[in-house]
Structure formats: structure tokens, C-alpha cells
């Protein structure tokens, strides 16, 4: 029953989305709104229902498993769905951001809005599928399924230079996806398991571990492939341009959820299955992660365009996640999980608010903004809180994610310098965050000389509701992190608990070697 519900979270938005594309636009203007609302509300309700059904007392592993033959049995490919403590938070993230993005899109007055909503729903369906797939083939398939609509949306509704940007983004992201596909296939082939199921793979690998060379080669493919998708330095340049050009709801879904695919793949698959390979590559994880934080952080400071600034800041925050992964500890992995959810919610919120701000100023250039506090007090409050959340103010989930990752780094004496360099990020982000608030919210309204001239143009209900949903979720997780940490703990212990011991042994043997030398 619950597993059928889980499956329905994927097909309901898909069916509703495709039916929107098929029904003629003349059939009542209200109908399409209700259809798309139902299409995005269903996964949201299912996700939260499953959240409360999820038993945290179990041994770990997947719940609500759903298995369906697809006719590809000979290749070992099944439609195998399920949630564990790591995918559950991301599943909820996808549903939450999806609801907010589509609700916001309903009122966006875009041309050919039916097609727009239809693509968003199809994208949502792919996202729900990605985070609930146990089968690696479908994990990858659903990702592509969500990726393609985002290209189309940039092509049709994008901003300046949309064709060139969409093309660049397509090539870049497809390259990343291809690399990771090769990695996944190599993993499948090397493991000797005759199925793509993550469970079978991990069992097979536990019985017959790969050699260190093979592990490290496969990990390299997954790391750089997935890294491109997560805008790992220096493969990030698609992100700022792409998001700047993307229509807001597409940017919300892409930056908020789809981008998390790469880190989720590393967190759930690559590192647990290839611990030795990951360990061999950990200097790269750390170095590039630090580049994301410090170099991109400084680049973010130089941005004058609000949307570009948000895009760069989102690239920057991914750096913490790579560092968290590089600690190979339950604490680090937990921090990454929290940060993924937190960042997804906050960046979606920021992209949405930036569009709302654009509507008030008719520009994204921050130097031409000012006085939003006077023009739209409520919007300003949301914007200030969203920026505060994203720069890690306690009370919001982002703080916990960063904090737990820092704590995990601090555990290792040898990573002390990493801790110091990465914590520079909290100052860097404060600088660009507060600068943007200063430019947008503070000051006197532009183009008005006296206070009387200011016309109040505050948030409408369709802007408030999704903003409240996202901000509220950030605060709930930030104040009651137990909600997710208790559910995730067993799986994190299961996947990362052993690694801590393994790594201790490795470092001990290294030390012995050093002593012998």
C-alpha cells in the first residue's frame, strides 16, 4: 500500500503533466490550474505521509520497497523503488520545492503557461523518481528525465542569450552525466552482481571487494561526473549563467533539487560502495571543495547582479558538502545530508524571491535597487530571512548543516588547516549576503524623491504561500533537526560507521609505515 503510494508520487505528476500538454488550452482557464496544483500537491502529501510512516526503529535499509519488472530483466534492470533514511529527506525536499515552484509558476503569467506547467510537472516526476530509486539504472534514468525539461524551459522561457546558454549547459551537464553513467556501469560490471540494484551491489561488493586501483578509477569517474552536476570547482561555470537565464520555477527546481543528485549519488552510492577509492581521492575532494568555498566565495562578492550572486553563492555552499564527504564519518555525512536539504530549500526560496524583487524594480542589477523595505515590507522580511538562512544564521537548517560539517572536520587533527580555511566561508558569506540586503532592502526607494510617492507593492498571496512553505521548512529543520537526524541515523551508521574504523586502520598502518621508513 505504502509502496504503491511511493510509486504514485512519480506517476501522478507525470500523468497530470502530460495531460496538461495534451488538452487544448481553450478548455477553461481554471482547469489547468487545478490539474497542475493537484499534480504537485500529491507528491507533497505522499512524501509527508511516508515520512510519518517511516519507522526509525528498524535496522536501517530501504522501506516501502516497490519492485516492478520492466522487460529488461535480462540486464538486471527493475523498477525498484524505496526510501531509506538518506533518501527520505531529499524525497521530501523534492516534493516541497516542487510544490512551491509550481505554485509560484501558476501565477507567473508566462506565455504558453500550460506547456510551462506541464514541463515543470514532468521534471518533478523525474525528481521524485531519482530520490526513490534503488535501481541504479532508474536512478540515472529519472535524473535525465528531469534534466531535459529544464533545458527546454531555458530555451523557451529563458532570459538573454538563452539558446547559447541552454546549449552550453546541455553539453556540460550531459558530459557530467555521461561520465557518471560510465562510472555506474563500470561499478555494475566490476561488482559481478547481475543487477543494478544498490542493495545487491553493496552485498556483492561486501563479499568480493574490488582492488584499490579499480575502486579509485571508478570513483574518479563518479566523482568528476557527479561533481560537474554539482558545480564542483572548476566545473561550475555552467551554473551562474544557466540559473541567471532560467525561468524562476525551473531554476528553483534545478538548483534546489536536481543539482543535489550529484551529492546524493556520492553520499548514498559512491562513497559507501567505494570507500578505498574515495579515500584515495580525498585530497581532491578537499582541495576542490575549499576552492568552491574560498575562490567562488570571493567571486560571489564581486557580483552586481542579484540572480548571479545567488547562483554563485549556491556554487560556493556546495564546497562544504564536499568537505563533509571527505571526513568519511557519520557526523560528516549527516552534516552533508542536512546541508543538502537546507541548501535546496534556501536557494529555491532565494531564486523565487529574486524574481519577485525583479518584478518591483524591473532589473536584477543591485546597484539600481534600493528601498525595498519601503516598497514591499513583507517581501523585505522574507528576503532578509532567506539571506540570513543561506549565510548560516542559527535557527535555520543551513547553520546546522555547516556546523555539523565543521564539527566533523574538526575531529581530525590532520584536517585542522581545512577547518580554518573552510570556516573563512562564514565571513565571506556574511559579506556578500549583507551587501545584497543593504543594496536591495535598505536605502530610499529608487526613482522616488519623497516618501509620499512610494507606492506600496507588497507580496501577493501567491508569493507569500510558497515563501512561507520554504522558509517554514528551513526553520522547522533548523530548530528540530531530530526530525531528520533520527530517521537518517541508522542508515548513516550502516553506511559510514564501518568506514570510520576502516580509515582509522588505514591511517594507523600509514603511520606505522612512516615509522618504519
Amino acid at each position, binding site marked *: 500500500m505504502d509502496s504503491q503510494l511511493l510509486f504514485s508520487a512519480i506517476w501522478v505528476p507525470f500523468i497530470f503533466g502530460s495531460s496538461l500538454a495534451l488538452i487544448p488550452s481553450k478548455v477553461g482557464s481554471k482547469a489547468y490550474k487545478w490539474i497542475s496544483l493537484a499534480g504537485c500537491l500529491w507528491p507533497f502529501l505522499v512524501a509527508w505521509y511516508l515520512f510519518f510512516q517511516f519507522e526509525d526503529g528498524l535496522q536501517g535499509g530501504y522501506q516501502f520497497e516497490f519492485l516492478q519488472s520492466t522487460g529488461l530483466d535480462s540486464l538486471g534492470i527493475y523498477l525498484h523503488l524505496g526510501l531509506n533514511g538518506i533518501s527520505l529527506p531529499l524525497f521530501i525536499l523534492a516534493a516541497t520545492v516542487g510544490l512551491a515552484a509550481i505554485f509560484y509558476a501558476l501565477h507567473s503569467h508566462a506565455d504558453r503557461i500550460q506547456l510551462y506547467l506541464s514541463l515543470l510537472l514532468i521534471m518533478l516526476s523525474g525528481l521524485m523518481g531519482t530520490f526513490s530509486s534503488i535501481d541504479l539504472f532508474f536512478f540515472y534514468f529519472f535524473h535525465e528525465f528531469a534534466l531535459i525539461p529544464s533545458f527546454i524551459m531555458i530555451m523557451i522561457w529563458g532570459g538573454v542569450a538563452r539558446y547559447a546558454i541552454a546549449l*552550453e549547459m546541455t*553539453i*556540460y551537464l550531459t558530459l557530467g552525466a555521461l561520465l557518471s553513467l560510465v562510472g555506474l556501469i563500470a561499478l555494475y560490471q566490476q561488482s559481478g552482481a547481475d543487477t543494478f540494484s544498490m542493495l545487491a551491489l553493496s552485498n556483492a561488493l561486501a563479499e568480493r571487494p574490488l582492488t584499490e586501483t579499480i575502486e579509485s578509477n571508478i570513483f574518479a569517474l563518479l566523482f568528476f561526473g557527479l561533481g560537474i552536476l554539482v558545480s564542483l570547482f*572548476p566545473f561550475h*561555470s555552467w551554473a551562474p*549563467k544557466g540559473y541567471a537565464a532560467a525561468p524562476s520555477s525551473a531554476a528553483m527546481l534545478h538548483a534546489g533539487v536536481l543539482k543535489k543528485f550529484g551529492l546524493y549519488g556520492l553520499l548514498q552510492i559512491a562513497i559507501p560502495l567505494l570507500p578505498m577509492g574515495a579515500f584515495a581521492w580525498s585530497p581532491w575532494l578537499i582541495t576542490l571543495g575549499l576552492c568552491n568555498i574560498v*575562490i*567562488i566565495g*570571493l*567571486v560571489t*562578492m*564581486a*557580483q552586481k547582479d542579484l540572480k548571479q550572486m545567488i547562483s554563485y553563492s549556491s556554487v560556493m555552499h556546495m564546497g562544504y558538502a564536499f568537505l563533509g564527504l571527505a571526513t568519511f*564519518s*557519520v*557526523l560528516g*555525512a*549527516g*552534516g552533508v545530508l542536512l546541508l543538502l536539504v537546507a541548501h535546496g530549500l534556501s536557494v529555491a526560496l532565494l531564486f523565487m524571491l529574486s524574481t519577485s524583487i525583479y518584478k518591483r524594480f524591473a532589473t536584477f542589477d543591485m546597484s539600481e535597487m534600493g528601498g525595498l*523595505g*519601503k516598497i514591499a*515590507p513583507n517581501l523585505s522580511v522574507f528576503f*532578509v530571512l532567506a539571506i*540570513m538562512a543561506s549565510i548560516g*544564521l*542559527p*535557527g535555520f537548517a543551513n*547553520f*546546522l548543516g555547516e*556546523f*555539523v560539517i*565543521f*564539527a566533523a572536520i*574538526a*575531529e581530525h587533527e590532520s584536517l585542522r588547516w581545512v*577547518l*580554518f580555511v573552510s*570556516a*573563512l566561508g*562564514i*565571513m565571506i558569506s*556574511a*559579506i556578500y549576503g*549583507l*551587501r545584497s*540586503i*543593504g543594496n536591495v*532592502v*535598505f*536605502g*530610499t526607494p529608487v526613482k522616488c524623491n519623497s516618501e509620499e510617492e512610494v507606492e506600496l507593492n507588497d507580496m501577493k498571496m501567491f508569493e507569500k504561500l510558497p515563501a512561507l512553505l520554504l522558509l517554514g521548512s528551513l526553520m522547522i529543520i533548523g530548530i528540530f*533537526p*531530530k526530525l531528520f*537526524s*533520527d530517521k537518517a*541515523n541508522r542508515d*548513516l*551508521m550502516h553506511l*559510514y*560507521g564501518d568506514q570510520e574504523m576502516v580509515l582509522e586502520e588505514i591511517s594507523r598502518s600509514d603511520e606505522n609505515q612512516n615509522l618504519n621508513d
Partner: protein
Amino acid sequence: MDPLNALLGILFIPLLASLVIVLLGSKRSKAGPLIAIFASIGLLLLTLSLISNEIGEAVRFSWEWFRFGDHTFELGFLFDNISATMLAMIAVVGLFITIFSLGYMSDDQAKGRFFAGLSFFMFSMLGIVLADNLIMVFVFWELVGFSSYMLIGHYFQNEEAKLASKKAFIVNRIGDFGFLLGILLTFWQFGTTNIEAIAMAVGMDASTINTFIGALLICGFIGKSAQFPLHVWLPDAMAGPTPVSALIHAATMVAAGIYLLIRIDVLLAPRILTFIAYLGAFVALFAGFCAYAQNDIKRILAYSTLSQLGYMASIFGLGFPGIALFHLITHAFFKALLFLGAGAVIHACHHEQSIFKMGGLYKKMPTTTVCFIIGTLALCGVYGFSGFYSKDAILIASYGVQVELFYVLVFGALMTAGYMGRLVWTAFFGKANSEKALQAHEVGFNMLLPLIVLAIFSIFVGLNHYWPFALGGTISADLDTIHHMDGYKSIHKLVVILGSTAWILGLLGSLLFYGLGNKEDLLQKRAPSVFAFLKGRLWIDEIYSYYVNKIQRSVSNFLNFFDVVILRGILIRGGSGLVGALGVGLRMLHVGKLNAYSIWFLFALLFIYLVASGTL
């Protein structure tokens, strides 16, 4: 009442008030002040009931916040005599400042935002005071920073407020950078950040004290208590409404740094303590000098706050946390009084803040003047006023431990009396120097009441023998220590003589030098170079703005250029260009002639032979 419920009530009443005010929205913002006042009264009553019930025993509660693997993070209360003393001070000062705000902010358009911010600040501040572990302290530490940011930026259309609020937050973040790292290292050093557990661990094994961790932890104090070199935000923070300056930037938040030091006392190695002692003494003098070149009444008081925080830090570093706490409490009352007095003056003078455009206010605002003078005398440490008791204790203790610092601090007291005399003689006496000052009249009763109450406290709060039993245990312990010092009587006599000479000289000297109700700064006129030097404040602000505008900006612009042009433009675009060029090149090989292909075939054979034979 059950202590747990009382503590929960104390912490969450202000939060609740703040949320209700926000939810009421701007249309019903008139209810905001009332809600905030009721919340403050409730807070005070709960505090009183808690203090009267608890008999000296510390109260502890803690809950698991979240857990990853074997690592648990907790939230919890630690209510002992130190937090009780702070709580009592915050509750009393907070209530009267809220009442004062009612009048001060009466014509403000955004009352709702102001009172919501004030209540939220109370919540965050109480969180710091009641926290039982350093992670929770850090959470609320950041939240006070946020509420301070919002309140400094209250007049958000004002360029000054925009810059000041940003500066305050960022400078504090710099301090928090070190503080956070210190907390994390403490966590792994002791396996917990619980304050009592750490104290126990250090008690068992003193070698766990780590100088480096201590140095990181005190960064938090340096940022929040605005000590050198992170002091630059506090004077600018005066751009906020005056009640905010009184509550946050004089009485409570800036004192949180000192409170933190008292809490983590055991973690600080002797070298760190010595550093704090000298740093504090330096700030006490440095800020005193700076105050002479300020004309804005609030900025003078801000520098005075800096210098008093320096006194607290200095005596803490010399090993007397109780005396630091004592001075923190007396200072909170008289400095809140002085700021509210300044607020009343500013309100009466229609937002004129320069003391040289005031003058002669005593005739128009007699009650305010009397209260302000009481605050001044308390600040100068005049015998019988609260400031005397704490400053006296500071001087005696410092004489006993470190005589050089004693002389610095006595000289600081002279400076204090000097700049306060300059302020009082210029602003309140003589003749009115501007139209605004001429039209000033006494403020209403709702603003006078807090002044009078705080004035009474400023006189008597120094008599710590009469405090409720639950308060001040640490303070009395340290006072007992100095009373039993060798030669206490003679030191005490010397201190009283030197201290009294200092304030008398300061007040008289400033009267003789500046005169009554002067229109211009005579120091500026008579010794412009000295004045310019003092006004320069060691050019710390200039150095920082050079760093921000020149170095940091060019680095980030360069990296942006690097990112856009090199990474994206040449590598990525160039990469795709390379693939394209390769395609063109390969196409040229396919010329479609048999002899060309046969030549390529031979080349390939040669290549394969070379590889196979191992030559290549």
C-alpha cells in the same frame, strides 16, 4: 513555581511576544508596544519568583537536540548565581527601556518592527545567559547579532544606518569565526561543550587547558564586547534608535562578551588571561581618549562603554571574574540611564545629537538633567554611587596583582571624568546653542519614570550586601578575597584618595577647560593637531576600509575576471573550440585520394612497430 517552567517561560515569553507582534502586521502595530511591555513585566515577575525561591543551588536541565552516530548535541539550562544575576539585571533594565521606548518611538512609523526586534533581542540574550553549553551559547550569540543588526538598521532608509548595521554584523562575524572554531576544538578536546562538565574535566586534569583553544574562544568576546581591534562597529552602531543603544549596545549584548569570559574562565590559560588584562586596560585608555574628539552625545557614551568594557576585561584577566561581573551589573544600570537620558535629550531637541548645539538644558529639562548627572557621577565612581563600589573593587584588586595596570586604570578614571564633564558642562549648562535646544522641553512621564527608576538603581545597586541571596555569590566571593588581601586597609585608603582625586580633577578640569555651554570644541580650537589625532582614533577604521575597498575588492574582482574569462571563456569555450579544431584537422586528413591513405597506412604501421618494439 517549578524552576523548569519558570525558565522556559522566561526564555519563550519574549519570543512569543515578538512572533505575535510580527503576525499582527503593520496595520495593527499599535498593539506592539503593549505586548512588548506585558512580556517584559511577565519576564520580570517570573525572574523575581525564581530568584526568591531558589536558595543558592544551581538548577540544570538538558535535552538532546540531535544526534549523529555517537555524537550528541544538547540544549539545556544552567541557572546558577551568575546567570541569575545577569537575568535579574536584564529583566529590570529591559522592562524600563521598553517603557521608555513607548514614548521615544511614539511617532515612529514602524513601531511593530521595532518592538518585535526588541523582544526578539531579549529572547536571544536570555538564551545566552541561560545556556548550559557553548554550542547553545553560539546559537544565541548569532541571534543577538542578528537582532542587533535589525535594530541598528531600524532607520533603514538612512545611509548611515545601512552601513553601520552591515559593519556591526560583519565585524561580529569575524569574532565569531574564531569563537566557532574554538567551540569545535573544545568539543573534541572534552567530548562535550557543557560548561560544568568542562569545568569538572579541567578540575581533574589541568593539562587539558589549551592556550590555542583559549585564544580562539576569546575572539567571540573581542567581537561582541567590541574590544580592540574589533571595536570599530560599536560607535557606528549608534545609528540605531537610542533605546536600542541603551539596551543592546550598553547594558546587555556588549556585556555578553564579559559574561562569556566568566563562563569559560576555566578554559583560559594564564597567558590568555594576561593578554585580556592588558588588552582591556589598553581599550579603557584608548576609548577614553577617543571620546574627547566626539561631538555626538551618543558616540561619546559609546566610547565610554568601550572603555568600561575594557575595565571589566582587565579585571577579569587579573583573575577576578566576580568583580568583572559586579562592574558589568553596575555599569548596565548607569549606562542604560545615561543612554536613556541622552535619548530624552535627543527626543526633546528634535533629533539633534551634537552636544555643541545643545546647552542650557538643565533649565528646560530639570529631571532629565538630574538623572543624567546621577548617571555621570556613578560612571565617574563618585563615593556613594554604585560605580564607586565596583570601580573601587577593580582598582584595589588591580593594585594587589599588577600595579602598572592599576595606574593605567586610575588614569582611565581621570579620563572618564574628563570627557563626561565635557559632555555635561557643554550640553546641560550655559545657554542654548541652537534653535532646537531653545525649544526643548521636559519629556513626558512615561519617559521620565524609567530615568528616575534607573537613577535610583544607579545609586544603590552597588550595595551588593543587600542583594537577594540568590544573586551575587561569585561577586561576594571575589570581594571577600580582596578584603583579605595583605594591607587591604592602606590600599583601600590609597585607592579612595586616588580615585576621588581622579574624578574631581576630571570634572573640574573639564569645567575650567571647556566652560559652560560652549558653542565649539575648545580643544579643536586651541590644539587642532591633538584633536585631529584623537579624532583619527589610530586610523583603524581607515585601515579597514582600505583593506575592504582596495585589497578585498580587487582580489574578488580579479577572481571574478579569472572565473569569467579564463575558466569559462578560455578553458571551457576554448575546450570546445579545440574539439572543433580537431574535427577540422581530422577532416583534412580525409582527402579522398588513395596514395594519401597509403602513406597514412605506412605511418601507422611504423608507429605500431615502434610501440611494439618498445622504442616509443
